[in-house]
């Protein structure tokens, strides 16, 4: 295992400390619960948005905390849902009179933890609600899930809900935004390599030197099939077909396209995929009005990428275009 790691057991709190030190004006970091909160705290008149899951997917989710995005987030160990208490403390830290929307990617462990935490928070009088994200078209059921998995489409749910909350939407309205995004977003990924959780020290699955896993999950879960590697264009066609055929996208639709890197793939390769995806989208009669090429939901150092398409309407376009400030930044 070749990584920048000290004690693998401290990997998560150490990188979270780095994020906190790098963003002192934006974030507060609570080491006990591996939780990050907006420095400005929740606003009593605005809905709070929280999320949390196993780590290893950064910048999701703790690097998505900030004005216009999440109010708070917590991280479990690598690929392990956070403990119930951390989820509960995160909801509490985000508590607002306007309510708390908990965005959960659809994995068994995360759902159970947030279920319990939401019940506990509700018992304490906090107005908290859960919403499950499940944008991955690769497989119906998978390791760790009943139903589809939540993957990079999660970014759009956070972004749109964050913008709606910032604009003063009610809890019902923000939940409706989450539902609209989730109903209109689809993703599928492909892995070129496996990845090594620091505490495990060995690859999470094995892939032959010339093999790729099409439809891979962000924890290395099996996808649709294993294939011999082929050209970037052919892979992009396969992803585009799977993603775009899953909801009734139709010619004339305005869409956002995301090409998400899984951690070990350089940005240039993502742009090779984007070039083809953009071409296919235009051929299908879509108008690409927004695009996102980079790392949004990763799987440690896995080489690979996922393609996400989101069907837009005026409301979503406006919400995506709204400003947001997070630890994920360039300048």
């Amino acid at each position, binding site marked *: 295992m070749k990584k920048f790691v000290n004690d693998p057991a401290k990997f998560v709190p150490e990188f979270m400390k780095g994020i906190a030190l790098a963003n002192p004006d934006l974030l507060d970091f609570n080491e006990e619960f591996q939780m990050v909160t907006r420095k400005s705290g929740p606003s009593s008149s605005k809905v709070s948005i929280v999320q949390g899951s196993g780590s290893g997917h950064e910048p999701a989710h703790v690097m998505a905390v900030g004005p216009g995005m999440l109010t708070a987030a917590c991280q*479990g160990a690598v690929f*392990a849902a956070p403990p119930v208490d951390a989820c509960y403390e995160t909801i509490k830290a985000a508590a607002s009179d306007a309510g708390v929307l908990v965005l959960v990617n659809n994995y068994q462990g995360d759902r159970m933890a947030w279920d319990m935490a939401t019940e506990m928070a509700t018992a304490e009088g906090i107005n908290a609600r859960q919403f499950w994200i499940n944008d991955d078209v690769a497989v119906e059921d998978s390791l760790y899930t009943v139903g589809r998995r939540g993957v990079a489409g999660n970014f759009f749910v956070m972004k749109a809900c964050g913008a709606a909350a910032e604009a003063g939407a009610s809890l019902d309205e923000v939940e409706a935004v989450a539902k609209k995004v989730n109903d209109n977003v689809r993703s599928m990924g492909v892995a070129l390599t496996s990845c090594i959780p620091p505490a495990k020290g060995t690859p999470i699955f094995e892939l032959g030197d010339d093999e790729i896993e099409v439809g891979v999950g962000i924890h290395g879960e099996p996808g649709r099939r294993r294939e011999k590697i082929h050209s970037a264009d052919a892979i992009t066609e396969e992803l585009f077909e799977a993603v775009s055929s899953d909801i009734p996208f139709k010619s004339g639709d305005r869409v956002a396209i995301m090409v998400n890197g899984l951690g070990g793939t350089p940005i240039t390769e993502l742009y090779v995929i984007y070039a083809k995806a953009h071409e296919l989208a235009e051929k299908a009669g879509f108008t690409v009005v927004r695009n996102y090429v980079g790392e949004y939901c990763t799987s440690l150092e896995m080489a690979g990428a996922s393609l996400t398409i989101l069907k837009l309407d005026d409301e979503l376009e406006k919400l995506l275009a709204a400003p947001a400030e997070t630890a994920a930044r360039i300048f």
Partner: protein
Amino acid sequence: MSAIPQADIERAIRTTAATVLRNEHYFSDLDGLAGDGDFGTSLATGFRVIDNEWGEIDKSNIGAMLLKISMLVSKHVGGSSGPIWGTGFMKAAMLTRGKEEISLDELAEMLGAAIEGIQARGGAKLGDKTLLDALIPVHETLKGHCAAGDKAAALKDCAGVAEQAIDETRTLVAHRGRASQVGERSANTPDPGIVSIAVILNDWCKEFGIANTPTVAEVVNQPA
């Protein structure tokens, strides 16, 4: 004679902690065969705290103690195991509030309540290749011993039944709802949750001086 004093429950919990800590890597490796390899670490993180804070844990009665255990699990165990084990201890705690000893009947009820809680929490059923496939037959066995009331015989039989569950579920595709196209990776691997139950019960036998000779590979091969 079938009463179980709080001291025995305390010994069982401390033994469980020792078992989980000793098997941290082993359980994670088993989870890595078809899953994500975090089961042992997740569980050990919680039981390490239980072990370290043992002196301070409220032991005024069995229920108070189990409630505290449940809280420590909720605080420190991540992954699916946190909610599952946390819910189990919580349900058991609720039936033992204020008690300083319990009968075999009550023990069976506690386990039944834990099973119900886990099912409600995670939606798994018998045959989904989860630790419920060990807990449910263990519960049945325990109930069958209530009338006779021989604690030692009950524990020994429970350990045997849990062990069998490893073999009986080995060829099942994990987990509940998991589609067949992604199943191959788990089709011939033991479920780590089931193994953990069998190993714990085997260790309880040792702790309480009950002769028990494991035969299933995963229990035989656990680190000494």
